[in-house]
């Protein structure tokens, strides 16, 4: 286990698999080859700073700037695509370098070159420190890797009993509401706007006795029907009724032109024969 953990840390500190495999190359070339493996300019700077083989606090910023600018230059020479981050850092480092080399001007608004350099060192140290912690963290014994929880946990079975409460008022209200709905439904059902054939035949039979002369079908329809649906239904049923009456020989029908009015005349067998 210790072995494994150690190798985890190694992995972590030498994150680029290519880097460890290309020992025969010199540092700079290795860095460029592995540009893809870097996690941004700070990562490159941290890797470069290791080549100085001193504590990060004692690092030569000027040397680091030189190494970084060379790294960027070579990467460009090899036509490697560099993300903007790397170029911004290069520009800033070039600026820092010039500030460090030139005699410092007194300017209260700006940080001194030493302060800027100290900040860069701080950032590198901070990243380095968190990486060390990350490695330590990952090398800890982990649950599910080094230790295991109960493989077949016995769950707590919760049985829920439901209780219900209902008042008499709620019960009766529900029944009343149901009855109310039922009543409303009845009213709707009664609004049937259909005039049946039987009704029409009855009405026509009753009225035919009065129709001694030719009478228009309209005259047989009841007055004052406002329901349009019902009126249509009546007309249709009455028409069917006349056909029915003619068929059984109780009425004569005449229509003088297509779509013209339909005339009906009662045919009271004995009476009509007598008259004619």
């Amino acid at each position, binding site marked *: 286990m210790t072995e494994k953990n150690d190798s985890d840390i190694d992995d972590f500190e030498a994150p680029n698999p290519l880097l460890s495999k290309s020992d025969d190359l010199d540092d700079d070339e290795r860095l460029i080859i592995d540009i893809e493996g870097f996690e941004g300019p700070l990562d490159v700077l941290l890797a470069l700073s290791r080549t100085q083989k001193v504590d990060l606090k004692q690092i030569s910023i000027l040397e680091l700037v030189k190494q970084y600018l060379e790294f960027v230059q070579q990467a460009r020479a090899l036509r490697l695509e560099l993300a903007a981050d790397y170029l911004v850092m290069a520009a800033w480092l070039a600026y820092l370098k010039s500030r460090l080399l030139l005699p410092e001007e007194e300017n209260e608004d700006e940080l001194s070159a030493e302060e800027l350099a100290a900040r860069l060192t701080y950032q590198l140290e901070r990243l380095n420190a968190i990486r060390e912690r990350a490695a330590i963290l990952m090398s800890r014994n982990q649950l599910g890797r080094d230790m*295991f929880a109960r493989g077949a946990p016995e769950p707590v*079975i919760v049985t829920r009993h*439901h209780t*219900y409460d209902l008042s008499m008022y709620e019960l009766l209200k529900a*029944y009343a509401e149901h009855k109310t709905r039922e009543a409303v439904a009845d*009213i709707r059902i009664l609004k049937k706007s259909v005039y049946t054939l039987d009704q029409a035949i009855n009405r026509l039979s009753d009225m035919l006795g009065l129709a001694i002369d030719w009478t228009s079908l309209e005259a047989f329809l009841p007055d004052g029907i406002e329901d349009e649906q019902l009126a249509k239904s009546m007309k249709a049923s009455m028409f069917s009724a006349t056909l029915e009456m003619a068929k059984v020989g109780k009425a004569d029908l005449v229509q003088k032109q297509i779509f013209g009015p339909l005339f009906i005349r009662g045919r009271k067998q004995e009476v009509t024969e007598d008259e004619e």
Partner: protein
Amino acid sequence: MDNHEQLRICEALLFASDRPLSSIALAEQLPEGSDVEAILSELQKKYESAGVHLVEVAGKWMFQTASDLAFLLRKEEEKERKLSRAAVETLAIVAYHQPVTRAEIEEIRGVGVSKGTLDVLMEAVWVRPLGRRRTPGRPMTYGTTEDFLVQFGLNSVKDLPGLAELKAAGFLDNVNTSRLNLLSDEEPDEEQPDLPMDDDESSSEEQVIS
């Protein structure tokens, strides 16, 4: 590897496994020639008076909560629930129309009665099956229970207020008075011609709440 270490290994393997392990499977993790059976019975003895026991099930071994502590793993919870509108209405219909079949309830309500609705009412012990009606299909009829009467403070279902009383109490205010005569409970069969039933006959074979 000493005996104690072998015991620890078996203990850890059995603890971490998601299924019972055979002694053969355990032996694979131990030095050759280890007496797995002896280790297992030693382990079993070790847990004899613990809250967890090592048990042999179908020739395999597993840790299990001591049976006298199984109650720890069962929790009973009482939870008050509200009846749905459909359930309250169904309960009322059962109360007024009992004995009543599910199809009749559906006919009266004009909508289907989900299985859950009657289940909830039976869970609440307010509705119970009364027996099967002697008609084609032998449908189950339902009625109210003793608990129902207790819940609503009734001596008998006959004490449920009639429609006229409901109207007088203002429950039916929204109903057109001229239509009230349509609300009669007396002729339920007229509206259910497809559900032939003979009340005189059925009442003899069904328990009637008195």
